[in-house]
């Protein structure tokens, strides 16, 4: 029986299993490192339920760090998947929700929601979603003309959308005078610290169905990379697949933006790395991006917590510091 198992299924298991190990390692690091000097040994003892019981450490691990690493896993997985989908649909290896301005659009929506005084769910999530759909439409309109279908034009229009979103965000912030300002700014830069288990649960309920939906269409994404016409004549409903994937991705990205602001370049770094390791087959890359992207953001968040002498910085700072140079390198390489 085992010998007849298709190659794909075997690869899927191997890849998922190894990335699961990476994710678990990252999660363990995330649980054990932080500003309280409890040490790894105490954390291991606490996780295994042996040794002296420390209620203080219990709270730190399960009430503060655990929701945070779960959030980082979900957000990292979503953003990587978002990058993967946009790269496939726009046939552009440099596309990514943050670079295209989708994240910026969601942020405008989210800030408007926050300023009106909506709750994070469903209010702010919904305004963020409208923001992301708005920018998505703008990008599609701009790139649909025959003349600006080219790669660089798409990225350039993304840069402009981002610049515009940045201006609108600053405009909205300058209208805000009260104490919310500091919180909004910190959130905007990709802060993972302000969640509890309930919020993580709500976010997971929104994202997990989308993950499966994207996986369901993963073979269609492979075929779409051969060109719309070839895909259609191989039986793909091109329009339906494209619209579904774009809306689902925008929804996922806006949901993460409304919870932890702008975390950039994850969708660029992770799919590139995974494509180098496992090849371009989306049926493998979709689960790989969810697990690998999750691990990546947990690692970045660990760095963001460990690097500063005092306090911490938003994880978005770290991802941008890694991602932006990589983007420039890739741009130079694809420019041959």
């Amino acid at each position: 029986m085992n010998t007849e198992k298709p190659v794909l299924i075997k690869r899927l298991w191997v890849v998922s299993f190894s990335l699961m190990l990476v994710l678990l390692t990252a999660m363990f690091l995330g649980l054990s490192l932080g500003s309280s000097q409890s040490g790894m040994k105490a954390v291991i003892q606490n996780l295994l339920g042996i040794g002296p019981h420390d209620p203080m450490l219990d709270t730190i691990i399960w009430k503060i760090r655990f929701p945070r690493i779960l959030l980082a896993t979900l957000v990292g997985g979503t953003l990587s998947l978002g990058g993967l989908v946009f790269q496939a649909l726009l046939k552009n290896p440099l596309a990514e929700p943050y670079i295209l301005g989708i994240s910026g659009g969601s942020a405008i929506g989210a800030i408007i929601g926050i300023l009106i005084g909506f709750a994070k769910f469903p209010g702010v999530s919904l305004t963020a979603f409208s923001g992301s759909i708005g920018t998505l439409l703008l990008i599609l309109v701009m790139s649909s003309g025959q003349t600006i279908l080219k790669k660089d034009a798409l990225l350039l229009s993304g840069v402009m959308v981002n610049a515009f979103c940045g201006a609108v965000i600053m405009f909205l912030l300058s209208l805000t005078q009260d104490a919310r300002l500091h919180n909004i700014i910190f959130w905007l830069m990709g802060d993972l610290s302000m969640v509890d288990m309930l919020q993580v649960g709500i976010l997971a309920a929104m994202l997990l169905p989308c993950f499966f939906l994207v996986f369901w269409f993963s073979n269609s994404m492979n075929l779409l990379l051969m060109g719309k016409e070839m895909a259609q004549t191989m039986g793909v409903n091109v329009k339906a697949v494209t619209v579904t994937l774009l809306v689902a991705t925008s929804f996922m990205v806006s949901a993460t933006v409304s919870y932890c602001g702008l975390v950039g370049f994850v969708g660029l770094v992770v799919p590139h790395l995974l494509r180098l390791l496992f090849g371009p087959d989306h049926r493998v890359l979709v689960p790989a991006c969810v697990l690998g992207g999750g691990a990546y953001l947990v690692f970045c968040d660990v760095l963001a917590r460990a690097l500063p002498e005092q306090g911490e910085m938003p994880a978005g700072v770290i991802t941008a510091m890694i991602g932006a140079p990589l983007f420039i390198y890739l741009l130079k390489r694809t420019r041959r």
Partner: protein
Amino acid sequence: MAIDVKNLNYYYGDIPALKDLSFSVTKGDFFIIIGPNGSGKTTLMKVMAGILKPKNGRLKILNRTLENYTRKDLAQTMAFVPQMMRVDFPFSVIEVVLMGRSPYLGMLGVEQEKDLKIAEQALTFTGVEHLAHRKLDQLSGGEQQRVFIARAICQEPEIILLDEPTASLDLAHQTRLMDLMEKLKKEKGITVVMVSHDVNLAAMYCDRLLLLNQGEMMCLGHPDEVLTFQTLEAAYGCTLLVDESPLGNFPRITPVPHKYLDHLQKI
């Protein structure tokens, strides 16, 4: 009939691209569509492939109207090889060819041993089996074209549509590709429908030829009937020399440059 077209019209906005076309392609034929730039060849090909939906007219594939096909049914009946394009993602040759199996597989396209065998046979048929594990973006234009044709064969279609497969290939690759198409027709009994710019290649290989001009059917028939200097000069609007090829009983077309017009009068 492999393909049967009746009173077909297609518009881009208000601009007519195909005007009242009626013709049919016999099963097992090598059928080539020629015509000047902008005559509607590629549009016609895309309509036949089911990519563009015509406003009116009727299109039958194997005696069944196009609307009666599901996407997968159609993909199992007819394969399409579009004009050359770049793929920026590093798929291997065998991965690309296996994609041709997806009309027979589920949503995730999980391929079985049998599909792999069909893909390998297709690669052997097109003579690129030694490239199976190379990356697509490392291949030359001629090799890529063969891989895409192997992918089309993998769909096990009864009809293959190709849009200018010989464009941008060198002379040797052009004839090798046309030979391959002939082999496809003879050994597998597949109906081959091709858009081409190269009237000389068309004359050497095709059974029947359709000359399009400004969206209208100008001439249809055996190469001898279509490739006369009257029809060609009317369609292309340039001076041509048409004589019999030294290779055999088919016409040879030579475009006559301005500076040789005097020579032409002497002949």
